[in-house]
Each structure stands twice: as structure tokens, then as C-alpha cells.
């Protein structure tokens, strides 16, 4: 193999699994350390700069970081169940305990003469607004609802996300001078374009819930609801109760929100019924666990056949029981088992089988092209549509995803809009800000806590079931207290503190090889990657993780380090007599519009 090029920011970035997996590339270990130090406001601001909605995301994020977390791999075969660091819930700790951060918010510069319209007040639009407003842009956000947040406000039940958190975090954005035209739904793009905005950002989400058109749908329509519409009505207080027996169709996170909401509004017999197998359900594992925890059964491999009704009054549903069969290519088909139909009695059905994009308000003559899935034709890096001054982001860009992806789109689109309005090429993307600095403070003293915690993942305490189920506005999760947050933060391996090898000073004494608790380091003769992976002290087949390879050393061997399960404990550097290993903190902050680091007031400890 060729020596690893660590000057490419991607190399060390990839080692920080959580940050690499995060669509917004939030520097996770950086803020977890701050939480461990009790610097909640600093931790909050690191998050706020990167993902705009720390308090909201700390409760609701899809957390792609957690399945990626190295801790989940290193704990494997080391005793109890391997679990990642509770990154998401630590983020909430920062949000809950930060105190007043208003003084840390960016200062606004005078109007720069450019006006930007954002359609929809969801996370993507609000991110665009936040990134552009401090640069002097006049940003106007349009939304049909009275309050900002989009799906954050209408879809996520209050027992998971209190409204005060939404108000606070959307408020920080409007405090930057962003104009909010609430109750003003944009129903014509053509008309909007005549209002002389210099750029338009579309962040209107994927607002249409998919229907299930099977027999009985029309006849029993009164007691059959589309999940996301029903959730919105619950959210806005239009619906406050539900009949006792409820079937929720679908296996995604919306289905989980529907069933848990129904449980709180009077549904005493709520069931989730899903076509696929339990393991293939789209809902995040923890959301399924939470639903089951509240006594909601999940019936899998049931394909809906009919809504059953008696002269228009819904009585239940009939299902065909299926099993999964896989062909040579691993493609799954659901095949009937031939068992008799299953009838499940119910009073109400909530359909949560997916969402669709809908742009009836964008006229053909605006020059904005759509593909055959009904999605806008975009440059995937710049988010620019076929009409140069119109940009898309969030669910309205590439279909339904999640909040953190919408935020990432918002940052990207803001960069594009800023470049576009400064007559720069939107296809040129700014490089991230990267620093790497040694953490050595003295002989075997590091400026990070390199002792490895043996603790297992801590559980977030819950409100008592009888309290939580009695009121839809009572938040179920109580959040970690400071002491537990400290312990959970200590589980973080500090993967951003990189093991950096200097070939020139290595004397090949093997001290690092001998001390490494996870056998990550090998000195051997060079070979191609497949061959090297087999010859390591602990052979590795996890191809998703890189090998860190040095140039040839004095004896003709090379140093190979398998990044996979490195604990970042720094013992290699402690046992190295010549300082050939050093622990260096790699901090990557993605660029944002104007290349300015927003709210860059993350204070180093005095």
C-alpha cells in the first residue's frame, strides 16, 4: 500500500465515525468533552453552529452518528451488549443545562442589499435563514401555519418534544432579523418570483401522506385518517381524543408517533400492523422499543386486504399473513403463507405508510424542471434548480429524510445562494476548516481524559407510565442529570484525538505494538491492502475502516494501524520513547455561507 495521505482532511475525518456519519458533520467528540467538563453552553454553541437545533435534535434526531459510533464496535465480545455512546441524549443535556446563550449569538451586519425568500418554515429554510441573515441578507420566511418549525412542530408529538423547545430555537433565528410571514402559504411560484427576491429557497417538505387505496377505503373514510395529517391536528389541538381500538398501518417513525399519540388520547387497544418483518421496519430501533415499552404490540408480516365496515361504519381490517422470500440477488418479496385471512377489529385506522412530495404551486412556465418521480431537477451539491436563482433543500429536494439532513441541505444551499448572489461559481464548494494540534502537556499527560471508561450505556430516565400516558403534553424522557451525563460523556473514546505517526523518529522498538489493548498496530512488510489486512496482529475484515500505513522504515517494514477499534487511549504515544506517536486533536468545522464561522465563540477553558 502507499503511505496514507493524512493531509487530506477526509482521512482523519473518517476516523471520527460519528462526525463523518452526521449529515451536518457536527464535531461530536468536541462537544461531548465539553459536556463532560460541565461546559454546557460551549457544547450547545458547537452544536448550534453546526446543526442549528440542538435542543430539538437532542430529542428527535435520527442519530446516524450512533450506529456509526466506534464504542459500539469496541464493546463487542467484551461482556455485555455492545452499545454506542448516547450522543443524541448528551446533546439534549447541553441544551437543557446551557443557561442563557443569547449573548453568544452572532451579531448582525448592515443590510447588504440582497433579499432572499424561503418557502416553508421548516428546518431547511430556517437553516438557510440563519446562515444568511448574519451576513447582511434580508431573509423572509413564508409559512402557511401560525408558528415556525414545519414538520418539527406539526408531526413530532409533544411528549417527545415540548413546544417551548421549538419556540426557543426557532426564536434564535428570528432574533437575527429574519422576517417571518406566518399564515401566508405560497401558492404560486410564478407570483413569488415577481416580488423581486434575489434568490428563492424552497424548503416546503414532503407534505402529502401516502394513501392506501384498498376496498372499503371510501366507504369507511370517516374513521380512516392519514397519519401525518392526524398528527398535525393533534399537534394543533384540533383532535384531542380517539376511539379505544386503533390500528396504525406502517412501520416507520411516523407510525411510531401515531401509535404513541393514540395511546395518550384514549386509545386503550392500539396496534401497529406492518407488511414487512419486524427487523426490516423503517422505524429507528429505539422508537420501536419505546412503542413496545408503552404496551403497543407490533404485528409484522401482515398485508392489508380490506377495510371492513358495516354500512359505512368501520369495524376492522382484514390482512393476509405473508412471509419474506429472497431471490439470488437478495431482493425480497412478500409471499402469502396461505393461512386464513386475519381479521383485526378496530374503531379507527391511521395510515402511516409514507410521504410524498407535491409541488402543485410551482408552475411549469417558471422553468423549474421536475423528474419523473415528481422531484425537482437539482445539482446535488449546490441544490440549484434549473432556474438559477431557485434552490431546494430538505425533504422537498430529494424526498423525505430527516431533520439533520434538512439542516445539512440548508447549510449547503445557503453557501450556494451566497456565492450565487456574489457572482461566484456555485459548483465550487468551500473546503472545511481543519486544525490539528498535539494534546501533549507533559510526560504522559494529555489535555484530554485518555482513561477508558468501562461503563455500559446509561439509560435515560422516563416519566412514570401512568403520568406519561395520561397527557400527550407530558414529556416522556426526562433527560440525563448532570452526574449521569458526566459518566455517559466519559464513555466517548475521543476519536477526534488522532494517533499520528512520524516515520522518521520511529526506532521500531515494538513498544506501541505491545501496549495496544486492541492490537491495532502491526509492523510488517508491505503488501496490497487485502494481503496486509490478513497479516495484521488482529486481522480485520471491516473494509469500511481504513488502514493507516507509513512509508518504509529502517528495517524495510512499514507501520500499519487498523483504525477500526482503536480506543484512542494514547498508550501507544505514552509508551513511545521517541515521540513517533503523538495524540493530536483533529477539529473539522464544515464551511458555511460567507465562509464565516457563525457564533464562533466556543471559548477555550481559561
Amino acid at each position, binding site marked *: 500500500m502507499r503511505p496514507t495521505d493524512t493531509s487530506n482532511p477526509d482521512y482523519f475525518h473518517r476516523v471520527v465515525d460519528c462526525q463523518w456519519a452526521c449529515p451536518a458533520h457536527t464535531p461530536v467528540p468536541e462537544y461531548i468533552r465539553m459536556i463532560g467538563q460541565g461546559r454546557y453552553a460551549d457544547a450547545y454553541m458547537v452544536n448550534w453552529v453546526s446543526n442549528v437545533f440542538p435542543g430539538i435534535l437532542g430529542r428527535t434526531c435520527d442519530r446516524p452518528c450512533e450506529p456509526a459510533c466506534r464504542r459500539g*464496535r*469496541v*464493546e*463487542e*465480545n*467484551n461482556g455485555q451488549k455492545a452499545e454506542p455512546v448516547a450522543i443524541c441524549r448528551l446533546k439534549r443535556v447541553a441544551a437543557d443545562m446551557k443557561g442563557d446563550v443569547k449573548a453568544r449569538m452572532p451579531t448582525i451586519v448592515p443590510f447588504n442589499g440582497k433579499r432572499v425568500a424561503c418557502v416553508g418554515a421548516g428546518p431547511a429554510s430556517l437553516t438557510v435563514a440563519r446562515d444568511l441573515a448574519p451576513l447582511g441578507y434580508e431573509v423572509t420566511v413564508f409559512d402557511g401555519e401560525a408558528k415556525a418549525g414545519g414538520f418539527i412542530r406539526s408531526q413530532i408529538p409533544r411528549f417527545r418534544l415540548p413546544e417551548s423547545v421549538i419556540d426557543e430555537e426557532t426564536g434564535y433565528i428570528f432574533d437575527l432579523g429574519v422576517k417571518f410571514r406566518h399564515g401566508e402559504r405560497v401558492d404560486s411560484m410564478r407570483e413569488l418570483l415577481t416580488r423581486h427576491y434575489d434568490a428563492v429557497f424552497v424548503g416546503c417538505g414532503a407534505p402529502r401522506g401516502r394513501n392506501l387505496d384498498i376496498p372499503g377505503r371510501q366507504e369507511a373514510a370517516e374513521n380512516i385518517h392519514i397519519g401525518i395529517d392526524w398528527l398535525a391536528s393533534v399537534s394543533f389541538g384540533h383532535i384531542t381524543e380517539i376511539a379505544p381500538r386503533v390500528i396504525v398501518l406502517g412501520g416507520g417513525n411516523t407510525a411510531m408517533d401515531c401509535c404513541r399519540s393514540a395511546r395518550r388520547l384514549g386509545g386503550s387497544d392500539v396496534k401497529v400492523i406492518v407488511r414487512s418483518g419486524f427487523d426490516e421496519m423503517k422505524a429507528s430501533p429505539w422508537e420501536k422499543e419505546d412503542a413496545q415499552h408503552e404496551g403497543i404490540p407490533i404485528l409484522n408480516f401482515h398485508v392489508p386486504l380490506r377495510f371492513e365496515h358495516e354500512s359505512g361504519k368501520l369495524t376492522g381490517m382484514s390482512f393476509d399473513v405473508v412471509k419474506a422470500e429472497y431471490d439470488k440477488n437478495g431482493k425480497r418479496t412478500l409471499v402469502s403463507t396461505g393461512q386464513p385471512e386475519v381479521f383485526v377489529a378496530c374503531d379507527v385506522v391511521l395510515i402511516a405508510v409514507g410521504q410524498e412530495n407535491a409541488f402543485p404551486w410551482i408552475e411549469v412556465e417558471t422553468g423549474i424542471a421536475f423528474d419523473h418521480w415528481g422531484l425537482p431537477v437539482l445539482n446535488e451539491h449546490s441544490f440549484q434548480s434549473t432556474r438559477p436563482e431557485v434552490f431546494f433543500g430538505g425533504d422537498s429536494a430529494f424526498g423525505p429524510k430527516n431533520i439533520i439532513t434538512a439542516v445539512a441541505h440548508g447549510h449547503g444551499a445557503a453557501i450556494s445562494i451566497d456565492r450565487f448572489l456574489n457572482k461566484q461559481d456555485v459548483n465550487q464548494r468551500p473546503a472545511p476548516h481543519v486544525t490539528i494540534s498535539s494534546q501533549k502537556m507533559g510526560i*504522559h499527560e494529555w489535555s484530554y481524559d*485518555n*482513561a*477508558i471508561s*468501562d461503563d455500559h450505556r446509561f439509560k435515560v430516565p422516563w416519566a412514570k407510565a401512568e403520568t406519561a400516558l395520561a397527557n400527550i403534553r407530558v414529556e416522556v424522557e426526562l433527560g440525563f442529570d448532570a452526574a449521569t451525563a458526566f459518566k455517559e460523556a466519559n464513555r466517548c473514546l475521543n476519536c477526534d484525538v488522532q494517533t499520528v505517526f512520524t516515520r522518521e523518529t520511529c*526506532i*521500531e*522498538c*515494538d*513498544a506501541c*505494538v*505491545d*501496549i495496544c*489493548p*486492541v*492490537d*491495532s498496530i502491526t509492523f510488517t512488510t508491505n503488501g496490497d491492502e487485502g494481503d496486509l489486512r490478513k497479516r495484521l496482529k*488482529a*486481522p*480485520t475484515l471491516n473494509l469500511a475502516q481504513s488502514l493507516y500505513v507509513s512509508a518504509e522504515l*529502517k*528495517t524495510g517494514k512499514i507501520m500499519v494501524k487498523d483504525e477500526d*477499534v482503536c*480506543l484512542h*487511549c494514547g*498508550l501507544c504515544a*505514552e*509508551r*513511545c*520513547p*521517541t515521540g513517533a506517536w503523538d495524540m493530536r486533536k483533529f477539529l473539522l468545522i464544515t464551511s458555511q455561507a460567507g465562509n464565516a464561522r457563525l457564533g464562533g465563540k466556543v471559548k477555550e477553558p481559561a
Partner: protein
Amino acid sequence: MTYLTKPHLHHPTLTRNKVGYTRRDYEGKISTLCAGCGHDSISAAIIQACWELDIEPHRVAKMSGIGCSSKTPDYFLGASHGFNTVHGRMPSVLTGANLANRDLLYLGISGDGDSASIGLGQFANAMRRGVRMAYIVENNGVYGLTKGQFSATADRGSKSKKGVINKESAVDLVGIALQLGATYVGRSFSGDKEQLVPLIKGALGHGGAAFIDVISPCVTFNNHSGSTKSYDYVREHNEAVNRIDFMVTHSEITTSYAPGEVTDVPQHDGSMLRLRKLHADYDPTDRLAAMNYMNERHSFGEVLTGLLYVDSHASDLHSALNTSRIPLNALGVKELTPGSAVLEKINAGLR
């Protein structure tokens, strides 16, 4: 030194040996030696060897004297028996332990000061008596604990870190061991585990006195350009006479070599050493020839390593003294107090 305890988490694919332990289970406390010390590599090689041999840790007794080397038994085999003796007295304490319980595996750890200076007489006599043990000297040629004076194994003409030339001739522990009747004699280098691990495995399975001189650079005081015990010097002058390729039983040997290329040496414990020759005219079963060859190569400045001599018909002190087969702590009252009739018989024999 490192202040942390080594993290308990281990690689997810770490395997267990036949007695149910991972390699990590053979570790001890974290080393307090200087970073990069060759001794730590030797500890790692001992850990590897014991894991590979499926040795139950409680079947091992590790003994040592005084010095950097003699601290190391704290850093491996944390679940084994141990005794840290007075300076240079490891061989006699080990001999005593061995006579009391012949069922344990004895590992004697010593250094160049401990064995070639203060304990030279102890070393010589343990070799001479054929105490069944693996005697490992971690040889760095300096007194590290007292700031780097030449030790008795420092080569004449080599330079100290301060630039002083050593005018005294070196004690050659390998030569003495050969002369005094050790039946398994090897030399190795802490920076070459491929050679060292099989050598230690062979020593642990040997039926008599097994001695390994391991050159182990002192990174703090003896790893500079004038040293003959530095990483660079040893690597440049290292001449391995053979490699131990296999440690298997007779029936399992499958690889074939041309005649003369390999020597098979059956061991006391039923295992087998297969030695692959690297020096064509070297015969590790001929003591006299081995000594001559070593001296000859030494005059050319070569550091000869590998298994230098082995006698597969080794016997030990127990057979020479015809001692009890059963460990003393397992003998019952009946054996220990055989009664007045037996006493009369013994007394009669002495009259």
C-alpha cells in the same frame, strides 16, 4: 511511566486458547519501565508464548532478582505465582521452589547485573545442577536503575552514553551456560518476537536447565551510536543460526524439507522442535562445535542468535537427586511421618 491502567476492552476477535483464556488474560500490571524498553517486548513475548502453549497461569512460578529486568514479572502473568528475591539470588530461591514442587513450570527472570555480576555464582550453579527452568536474562549491558554504568556484559570497546569507552572484557553468559552444562541455550533480541516467542516456548517445554540470553536495548542509557546493545547495532550484526518453525507432536509434522536443512528435536513434554537451518554448517546438538562456532563468529563482530545448543536427552536435578515425584505440599501425614521403624532403618544405615 504510564499512570493509567491498561483499558480492559480488547479486540472483538481475540480468541481463547484451549484452557479458556485470551492473550490479554496473561498480562500483568502496566509497565513502569521507560517507554520503549526492550524488556517490555520480552514480557509481551512471554505472554504470547504462554498463551500459545495453553498454559494455565496458576501452573507457572515466576522468580526474579533485582533490577529493571527483575521488575518485569509484575507486568506479565498476573495470575501466576511469583517471588521477587534478593539481588542475584533468584536461582537459589527458584531451585528451592523447584525441589519442593516439581509440577510447576519455572520461569526465572534476571538481568545482566543480577546474573553476570552479583549473582554470577548463583547463575553458574543453577546451570551446572540442571535445575529445570526457563532462565531468561534481559541483557542490556548497562545498569539502568543507577543511571547507566557499564554492566559486566558490556562489550569491551563499546561506548557509554557519556562517551566513556569500556576497557573491561564482557561476561559471556551464553558461553558460561554452555560450558557449565545447560541443556538448552539460546540467544535472541527483544526486537525480534518471531524468533523470541518460539525460543521461549521451547525453553518452557525443556526437560532441564534452559537459558536464553535476550539482548534488550536500554532506550534511556544504551541506545546510542557507540553502543553494541542498541536497536540499530543488534539489527545490523544479528546473525540467526536457525529458526524454530514448529512446536508440534511427531504425528503432525507435514511440511517436508531436504535432508540436512532441518533438525528435529523431541522435547521433554512430548512436543517437538523443528529447527530450520540458516547457517548450513551449524549443528545445535554438538556442544563443542557450537562453542567454537560462536567464538569464531563473535570475532567477526556477529551477534549469533537462535537456538544455539539443545540436548534432547536432558535430565534435571530431580532425577540426579532421586527426589519425591509428588510435590511436598501434596504429601500426606503417612509419607511425612513414616514411623519409628523407618527411622531405625535409616539410623542403622548410617552406623
